[in-house]
């Protein structure tokens, strides 16, 4: 073998460098987790024409105006739930769908808007 074949490792299972690696890893994980502790709870993804228009948290009550080709749709976030409050589409299907369950989605096809409640929902599972 061209590589230097190291002598048998010393008796210690964890050497100083290993500890450093482990601690750095733990610190990184903790930092990342802390950094986004709040962003993990429910998210709403609003798409227009298939592109992400806005991502919002479910925490603040508000109404988001989403401009589509037909006009402005209003997405309402209230009490940790999300729905499409009104939409310029003729049949109002997405409005009548009501509150969108976690992992669910409402689509206003005429206005090319989709709202996804991405709260801890899987959309694909594959091994």
């Amino acid at each position: 073998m061209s590589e230097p074949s190291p002598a048998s490792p010393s008796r210690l299972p964890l050497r100083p460098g290993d500890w450093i690696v482990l601690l750095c890893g733990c610190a990184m994980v903790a930092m990342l987790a802390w950094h986004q502790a709040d962003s993990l709870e429910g998210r709403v993804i609003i798409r227009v024409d298939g592109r992400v228009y806005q991502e919002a948290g479910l925490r603040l009550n508000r109404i988001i105006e989403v401009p589509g080709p037909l006009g402005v749709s209003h997405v309402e976030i209230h009490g940790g739930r999300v729905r499409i409050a009104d939409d310029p589409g003729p049949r109002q299907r997405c409005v009548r769908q009501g509150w969108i369950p976690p992992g669910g989605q409402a689509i206003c096809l005429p206005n090319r808007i989709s709202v996804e409640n991405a709260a801890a929902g899987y959309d694909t599972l594959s091994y």
Partner: protein
Amino acid sequence: MAGLAAAAIGLTLAEAAIPLPIPGVKPGLANIVTLLVLYRYGWRMAAWVAGLRVVAGALALGQFLTPAFVLSLSGGLASLLVLAWAIHLPQRWFGPVGLSVLAAGAHIVAQLLVVDLWLLPDIRLTAVLPLFLGAALVTGLANGLISHHLLTRR
């Protein structure tokens, strides 16, 4: 080498049969073999064994050239590159455990990069980063300890 690769493939297959709570998190037991080979026979041999394992494991599981295979390959390559660097770290300071954790980290980071850039570009993956990195830490530690045990046993 064929025997070692076969051992790695065996572990890959056995692992695929274990149901796991979170998709994407698995112990990566086959990397124990990679580490052992790295320590015993050097990096080139380890690269061969890991490469054979990725390809043959995918063939055996019926996922050759699927996204899962690309993920497996990218993770394998990334950890091999990191190992190529890490094996030259001073032995007194860095043992199998450190290397294992580093390789596991590289593995998952590369996989998440592929997922982010190619498979699911629309989804923000930062939310799952701590989970997967934490898992890599734990599995890296476990595999490293097992490797150390096997390396020092005889």
